[in-house]
């Protein structure tokens, strides 16, 4: 049996595969602080958003979170839910920003926004669901600092990659 696929489906599949690869690669590296990861998969989400629109970015991210967790073996574990909450929050922020600001925001701004939203989403879920403890709140500024830095790093990467990908106008 064969399911008819469109060009778009193929593109989603390729980009998702790329995002999953980055996701897994990142998971393999030890993290200095629990909850702190460079979030390089965000680069792909943002690029897809800029090049193909939000719907596509949502597909790629959704598949990345799902398939990535299946491969690493964290599906439906707390890690998975945190990852999903972060992705959902970051997609919402990206969607709003993209809709409101359009082309005036470059991948740099989008990456920073995505990184912060991702961390905020994760943190709120962790706080709400797992450990509503006052000392956890003390961690939030540190976590946000890291996500700001990583947002800037991944933003730089995204800007450079975008220049390679898109033909000069």
């Amino acid at each position, binding site marked *: 049996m064969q399911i008819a696929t469109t060009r778009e489906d193929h593109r989603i599949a390729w980009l998702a595969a790329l995002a999953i690869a980055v996701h897994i690669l990142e998971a393999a590296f030890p993290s200095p602080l629990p909850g702190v990861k460079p979030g390089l998969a965000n680069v792909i989400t943002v690029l897809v958003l800029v090049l193909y629109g939000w719907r596509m970015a949502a597909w790629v991210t959704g598949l990345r979170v799902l398939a990535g967790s299946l491969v690493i073996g964290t599906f439906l574990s707390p890690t998975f839910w945190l990852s999903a909450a972060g992705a959902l929050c970051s997609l919402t922020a990206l969607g709003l920003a993209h809709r409101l600001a359009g082309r005036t925001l470059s991948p*740099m*701004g989008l990456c*920073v926004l995505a990184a912060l939203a991702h961390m905020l989403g994760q943190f709120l879920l962790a706080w709400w669901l797992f450990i509503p403890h006052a000392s956890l709140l003390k961690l939030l500024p540190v976590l946000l600092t890291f996500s*700001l830095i990583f947002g800037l790093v991944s933003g730089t990467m995204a800007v450079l990659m975008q220049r390679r990908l898109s033909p000069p106008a």
Partner: protein
Amino acid sequence: MITRADALVILLACGLVAGTYAWLWSPGAPATQVRVISGNEEVARLPLDEAQQLEITGPAGITVVEIADGAARCAASPGTQGICQSAGWLKRAGDMAVSLPNRVIIEVLGDETEFDSMNY
């Protein structure tokens, strides 16, 4: 290239991060407050790290609340047995001094209490 909107987003992001530091890392903010209730109304909520004295006028007279060295106490109260004063210096979350005749409650606020309620 970085656009002006990018710059704005980065600026706001920096502001947010700085804001969380100011909000959550300000020296021991939430756990070191004392609340004074008089006649079932909250009349004062004070930080424990600023030495000061407060006089509360109740139905029986004046209750003096003293704050010093990160603790609060009932320094004087019209009750004849000094029950309010005998609670001593209050510093841990949940510590409390009460003047029944003057209807004053002095309590240290905070989340980190070991027990939900005390039985005595």
